[in-house]
């Protein structure tokens, strides 16, 4: 590994705004699709015309998921938007479930050990 090239990684975080053209390239979706997803509330761009829109980097993950679902599963924009929201809700509930399961498990273990 001595000859490994060292790379500088740039973290795209909440302070970064990404131009619409770059978003399309990154998420491999058309601008018209991005506009539709914005209309559906999946992303919240700033700027006036779609060509000039900018997106918070934190929303890239949603757009990329929507793009993947459309490409891979043949979903339309509304279907992908719905799926993204449901997946996020599912992940949120799974996190809560894990937290509660852990509490129950700990209480059970504590009861057994006494």
């Amino acid at each position: 590994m001595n000859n490994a090239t060292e790379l500088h990684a740039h973290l795209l975080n909440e302070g970064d705004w990404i131009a619409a053209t770059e978003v399309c390239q990154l998420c491999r979706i058309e601008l018209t699709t991005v506009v539709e997803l914005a209309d559906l509330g999946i992303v919240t761009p700033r700027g006036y015309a779609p060509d000039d829109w900018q997106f918070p980097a934190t929303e890239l993950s949603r757009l990329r998921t929507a793009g993947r679902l459309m490409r891979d599963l043949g979903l339309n924009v509304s279907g992908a938007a719905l799926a993204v929201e449901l997946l996020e809700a599912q992940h949120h509930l799974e996190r809560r479930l894990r937290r509660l399961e852990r509490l129950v498990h700990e209480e059970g273990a504590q009861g057994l050990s006494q």
Partner: protein
Amino acid sequence: MEYRDYYKILGVERTATADDIKKSYRRLARKYHPDVSKEKDAEARFKEVQEAYEVLKDPEKRAAYDQLGSNWKSGEQFRPPPDWASGFEFRGGPRQRRASSGEEVFEDEQFSDFFSSLFGGGGAGGAGPFAGAGARRSRAGRDHHARIEIDLDEAFGGTTRTLELKRPQLKDDGTLELKPHTVKVTIPSGVTEGQLIRLAGQGEPGPNGGRAGDLYLEVHIRPHRLFQLDGRDVTLTLPIAPWEAALGGPVKVPTLAGPVEMNIPAGAQSGQKLRLRGRGLPGQTPGDEYVLLKVVVPRANSPDARALYEEMRQKLAFDPRAELFG
């Protein structure tokens, strides 16, 4: 390399119609798509299905693949005959590059060596044994995407990863070969779930002198033994003794940066949440640590313990169910 039976992967007969193939692909893609699937090895299965569909949906590629014959078995050692696809004209697959580092990193749409040996990897204007006659003009290379898994502690403190990437390079005879390339990536502290890391110039090389694309790593954070992550905030369940809850006082609390002392307010209850500001993941707005209190009651398993509980029963006018009966 090993032969891949694309018909078997899609679960269709060799005589299947284009419609059957599409239906089967849709069904399997839905089942194994990494964004929605809970199946074991979903990622690997999905890539197989995608690769099989890439070939069987395209009449030219399918015809060329069929020309190999039906006697091959999945996993059998394979080398394509030199003239196996003569007479066919099709572009290679859209995927040109692979990233791998053990089980940690994979790239979107990574196809097998078997696929590459048959269909090359030439995109628009690209090269390879089956690349189309695209215009040879300079353009920027495409971006590539990979996924990387790290621990919460690494997300907090930053980490490094050594990735082995494979890049297509044009050989003298005009064919493409994948050359391994090792890079060491420093991942800054404060990365969160699903966040993207950009590695400038590490994507697809720009054909004919164009700018190389970038490599994006999508970060996923493994579940932690103590902390649950939500955005930049973390939650910790903190067991406390009844007297600590009743009387309050300082207790030692784990944080991502190491233990700190926190003051429990007198009269604290199970389920109460306390906040340690700025003790979550770092960032422009650092996350907080939420401490979820859980009162743990010791058992009355000794004469002294029993005596203490009896004394409490007699001396404390306490009815935890008072509100239930008005």
